[in-house]
């Protein structure tokens, strides 16, 4: 069992303060969807159908996140980087994942935050 490495701090962002996770930064606003996919038509029964569909899909997705909590997950990231970590939580916009025991080429990070735009896919066993 490898021992955890010291936390490696990211350099400060261009605005001189954040380290890439500032929810008030222009970058975060650009990434977070300002509106989600929705129809424009004002026919209320269509909207009801669409809303029913949206909540059903989202509930299933949230359940898949719950099933992942506490389990080791393999993350495929860009630049052919692959890491494994124990998944803990996600934020509401699916922009950040909180993980622990993150195995990286530098060593094991005890706690870490993964930026979802850096992830291509993630896999785990139920």
């Amino acid at each position, binding site marked *: 069992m490898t021992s955890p490495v010291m936390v490696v701090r990211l350099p400060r962002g261009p605005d001189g303060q954040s380290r890439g996770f500032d929810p008030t930064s222009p970058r975060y606003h650009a990434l977070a969807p300002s509106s989600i996919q929705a129809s424009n038509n004002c026919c209320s029964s269509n909207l009801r159908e669409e809303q029913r569909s949206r909540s059903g899909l989202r509930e*299933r997705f949230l359940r898949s996140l719950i099933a992942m909590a506490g389990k080791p997950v393999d993350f495929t990231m860009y630049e052919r980087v692959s890491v494994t970590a124990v998944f803990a939580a996600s934020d509401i916009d*699916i922009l950040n994942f909180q993980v622990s025991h993150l195995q990286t080429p530098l060593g094991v990070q005890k706690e870490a935050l993964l930026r979802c735009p850096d992830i291509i896919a993630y896999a*785990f066993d139920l």
Partner: protein
Amino acid sequence: MRSAGTREQGDWESICTVNMNEWITKKPLEWEKYLNKEVKVTADEKNAYQGWVFTVDPVSGSIVLVNFVDTGKVSVVTIMGHAIQTVELISEGENNTTEKLSALFMPVAAKVYSNEELGQRKSSLKSWLEKNRIPVTEQGDQHTVLCVAGVLTVSPPYNPEDCNSSNEIILSRVQSLINCNPDADHKTD
């Protein structure tokens, strides 16, 4: 009403393949058509994934695919919406695919308690909370629901996950308290 055969064919054609970057612009009703079907997804950097669609997240457009491995294991892979390039329909699925997939992620059935046991658990929790100087009253027709400080309710069987509140701080405080109630028999799942 058209017969089931022609309706399926129309749907099949409309969702057979999705071109680059089109996926993330779809609407929930269009995504819903892919549920419980087997698809092949190609993503950025030449990654390809195949499996049964459990869901598509309407917020991020991410597809959750499930694969049933021979050994009885279930493997789940989620491809992030922003990385999806193409989605190709492989098969429609059997009659039981929908139930099989839905059952996968549902919470495990809880232990069943008798009315007497439930009454005991309720009293035990009520006195524990009162011992910790937390105001608690009984609510509902059968007085089965405990109301804590007017902002949180605990329903039978009075486990931490049976707490309901819009106040996160009180919720987490009460849940920890329930967990360390020395009187309750801590049944392991």
